């Protein structure tokens, strides 16, 4: 198991409980996919894993998110440092309106990393995100001039530049075409050698392709978690079976 796990985690928007008593552990250097219907709480849960919900008014939690044995919601824990260790890639690519280089360098600069090592860090990050060969000759061009798929890989490079242990991905391919999606999926397969990855996706085939473990969320709770290769062919719970096969009744 990795250093990341949740214990009886419930998440509330005001008084409404969006996630209830979820205890999940995320295996190291592997991909865990969170699937479930819209509104089941999977994205809310994902955002809680690096305290992104802190920005949402009236959002509160009970239970714990432990990272390397430490509850990240402990009052003495710095949420900025948490997000440095547990990075996130969002649904829509959101590069800064800056150059390609500055997009990747921005985080390390803010973290006080010496400017002498930043060019090498940018190159390493872009290479890890499988983007270097496409942009190495135009690092000073605007990031917004890249295609959607390239922008998303740039955002992954930006997250990697902070050298996190965990990467959270919230439907990272939902705005991309099939070719760009295939490249991101290929990239996820490579990234798991260095990072623990948790991905939320609506695309069940994508979950089946990229993940090692799959958790099915329904009505704020986890119905079933299992090894992906058997999860999609032989789920154990009726609710999972009905969701995977698109059934009702």
């Amino acid at each position, binding site marked *: 198991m990795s250093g990341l796990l949740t214990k009886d985690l419930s998440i509330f928007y005001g008084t409404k409980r969006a996630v209830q008593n979820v205890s999940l552990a995320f295996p190291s250097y592997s991909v865990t996919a969170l699937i479930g219907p819209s509104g089941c709480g999977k994205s809310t849960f994902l955002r809680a894993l690096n305290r992104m919900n802190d920005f949402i008014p009236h959002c509160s939690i009970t239970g714990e998110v432990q990272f390397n044995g430490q509850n990240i919601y402990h009052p003495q824990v710095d949420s900025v440092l948490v997000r440095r260790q547990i990075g996130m890639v969002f649904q829509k690519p959101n590069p800064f309106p800056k150059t390609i280089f500055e997009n990747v360098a921005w985080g390390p600069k803010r973290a006080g990393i010496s400017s002498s090592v930043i060019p090498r860090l940018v190159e390493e990050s872009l290479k890890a995100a499988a983007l270097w060969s496409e942009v190495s000759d135009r690092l000073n061009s605007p990031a917004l001039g890249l295609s959607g798929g390239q922008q998303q890989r740039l955002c992954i490079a930006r997250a990697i530049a902070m050298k996190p242990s965990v990467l959270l991905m919230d439907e990272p391919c939902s705005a991309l075409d099939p070719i760009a999606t295939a490249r991101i999926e290929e990239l996820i397969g490579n990234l798991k050698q260095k990072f623990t990855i948790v991905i939320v996706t609506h695309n069940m*085939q994508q979950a089946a392709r990229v993940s090692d473990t799959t958790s099915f969320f329904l009505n704020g709770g986890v119905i079933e978690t299992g090894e992906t290769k058997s999860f*999609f*062919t032989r*789920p154990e719970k009726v609710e*999972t079976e009905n969701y995977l*096969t698109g*059934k009702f*009744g």
Partner: protein
Amino acid sequence: MSSKHFSAQFEEDLTKLKDSLLLMGGTIESMLNETHEALLRNDANLARRVIHRDVEVDNLEKVVDQQALQILALRQPAAIDLRFVTSAFKICTDLERMGDILVNICERICELAEVEQLKPYEILPEMMQTVRRMISLSLDSFVNQSTETAAEVLESDQKVDQMTREIFSELVLLMKSHENAVERGLKLFFITKHLERLADHSTNIAEQVIFTVKGLDIRHSHAPGPTPSSI
């Protein structure tokens, strides 16, 4: 598959696939019944009619393959639906092979009609009856998605194997003692072997039903693993 899919079209596609397999199975059953009659009555004309019906099975094989392929391509099924569609491919192949085997049996019946019968059949009609029942049960288990019925088929296979051995022994004795029985004996030898293969194919179908319903792969389970009684 008791609950319905949200997509009515998907539901319809799966129903059509199931119906095509049932039609294929029904055709095999009907061909087998006629083969049984042809053997008992030494009726070469009826046997030839069965041979001509094999094209129906061949055509249905192509229909089933196309329907299953379309579902895989368009619907990307998962869980029990995925198991059902992959089983459809395998069941379809088994049924097609059964059609070919019935043709082989009927060809031998046509040849037997030209050779004098030495003595009445004893075990062969019973074996034919057992195989008919196995095929019927395997198709029933598919229709009703019943693992209990499928388990009955698996248990019957041993009985067929035993009858095969008995007929072989009897034929060897007959051929040793009557020189003029060799030609006929060899043809009956082949028919017996073909019937035994039909039983094997119905066993395959039953195994696929168990895989579809429970996700258990019990093929080649002579080694430790689930047995018919534990399904």
